[in-house]
């Protein structure tokens, strides 16, 4: 498919460096956890998780994202997707734990809402650098228990999401969904591995995407060779055993870069 034209209907400032861009059209059959390729014309095309079926939530980190931040309501960008495999929806009566760090909360928020709508009990651990960076706190809070951690202690537990996770009974949950910075995900991975909970856990990975549709091979992970853009971005904990997670990734040229 060629990029479709997405018109920005609303922009919300979530924190100084994070904005949500609502757009038209909306993806009615979104699988929460899926991503889109956002084309800022004349600049670059970058992957973004969907934070609703008609929004992306973007952290300004570089060239393309800062160009995106220059756009206003009524402007438009190109959009391909939704692509990839999302999180597994729980069934009625399941108890699920969401573990979100930083903008990792973006793809997890529609998942938490879909899980709640499916009749699951939804608990969330939400982590960020400081209180002002907590993303979608209200959306998660509306669904059930929420545990907050901040690196600087300005809200909730001072420390990381793993510090909260250590105090929870992992065995009580039927599913665990994780997205955030890779360092955070790999510490969560190790903790869940120790507690033999990888089978019910899912992680949403980030790798450098070129094609976004499973052909070029830029985003493949070791040792499985699975494609993050097509076989993921959401992988079960079991698929990631012995993988490169937390160790290295590859840059645009394919060179290994230490995490």
């Amino acid at each position: 498919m060629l990029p479709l034209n997405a018109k920005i209907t609303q922009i919300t400032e979530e924190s100084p460096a994070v904005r949500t861009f609502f757009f038209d059209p909306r993806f009615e059959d979104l699988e929460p956890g899926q991503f889109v390729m956002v084309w800022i014309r004349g600049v670059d095309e970058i992957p973004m998780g969907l934070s609703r079926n008609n929004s992306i939530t973007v952290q300004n980190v570089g060239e393309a994202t800062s160009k995106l931040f220059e756009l206003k309501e009524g402007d438009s960008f190109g959009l391909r997707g939704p692509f990839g495999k999302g999180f597994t929806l729980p069934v009625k009566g399941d108890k699920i734990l969401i573990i979100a760090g930083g903008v990792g909360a973006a793809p997890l928020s529609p998942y938490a809402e879909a899980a709640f709508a499916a009749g699951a009990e939804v608990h969330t651990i939400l982590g960020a650098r400081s209180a002002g960076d907590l993303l979608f706190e209200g959306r998660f809070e509306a669904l059930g228990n929420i545990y907050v951690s901040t690196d600087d202690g300005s809200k909730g537990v001072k420390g990381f999401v793993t510090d909260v996770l250590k105090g929870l009974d992992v065995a009580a949950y039927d599913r665990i969904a994780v997205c955030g910075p890779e360092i955070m995900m790999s510490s969560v991975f190790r903790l869940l591995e120790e507690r033999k909970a990888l089978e019910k856990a899912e992680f949403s990975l980030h790798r450098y995407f070129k094609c976004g549709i499973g052909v070029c091979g830029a985003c493949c992970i070791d040792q499985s060779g699975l494609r993050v853009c097509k076989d993921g971005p959401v992988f079960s904990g079991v698929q990631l055993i012995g993988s490169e997670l937390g160790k290295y990734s590859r840059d645009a040229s394919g060179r290994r870069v230490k995490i």
Partner: protein
Amino acid sequence: MYTLTGLKLKNPTILAAGVLGTTGASLCRVAREGGAGAVVTKSIGPAPKTGHSNPSMVRLDCGFLNAMGLPNPSYPGFLQELVFAKKNSSVPVIASIFGGNPAEFAEVAEGLLPSNPDAFELNVSCPHAEGYGAAVGSNPCLVEAVTAAVKDVVNVPVWVKLTPNVADITSIGTAAESGGADAVVAINTVKGMVIDIESGYPVLGNRSGGLSGKAVKPVAVKCVYDLYTALEIPVIGVGGVSSWEDAVEMMMAGAAAVQVGSAVYDRVDIFSEIGAGIETFLERKGYSNIKKIIGLAHEMV
């Protein structure tokens, strides 16, 4: 078992260059789970390249358009991937390489030799990398020189991958043969472009790129047909193969084996499916072996 330029293949389907070939693990997955008879790596050059900016590939109704821009970690960076693929894939691994001149081609080939690739494929055909690829591959003298330069430094088979974006592909094929090529591979992508009518911007980051998939199959079949007539060495057919029927057609045009690229979009195990389909076809039609269909169309007059 099936022999191609001395390599032993369990079936005549090969992963095309630049598709799922960035990492050793990915090449192994295509070999094991995908069932490919052999795999070709991403094209590797003398220095790291990040490639063109995105969008670098889009799907069209009739196929795919891409301008990756030869992203690669350079031969020193790729060695460990090739070593992994050689160790774990259990099929022949062909190193695709590129350079701007004969010396660079030879440098990259020699640089990858320690990982023992089973053959080299020379990319003289990428349509959208300035100074590389088709810039080399549309000049018969340069193609012959590049082929000879690599043949000089390696003692494994050398395949030369041709571009269809020339007036006469057989003159380039002949040049490769004169340079000592063990096979030619045809075709690389066909120049193409798409424009976003909402904004007027060309869609690809590189503005234009190369067409692959369904749309290019008839172009590939014709190129293979002509090369089969013109050359003594085997022709490997690539371009738009996504089913065993496509593979049989390519072989009837003269292909000794086929490569599959874009069709991994549908499923990674496309290779075993094509391999099995060819076998069943040969049985059903009573052909004693695959050689009976290679170039068959040339006899039907």
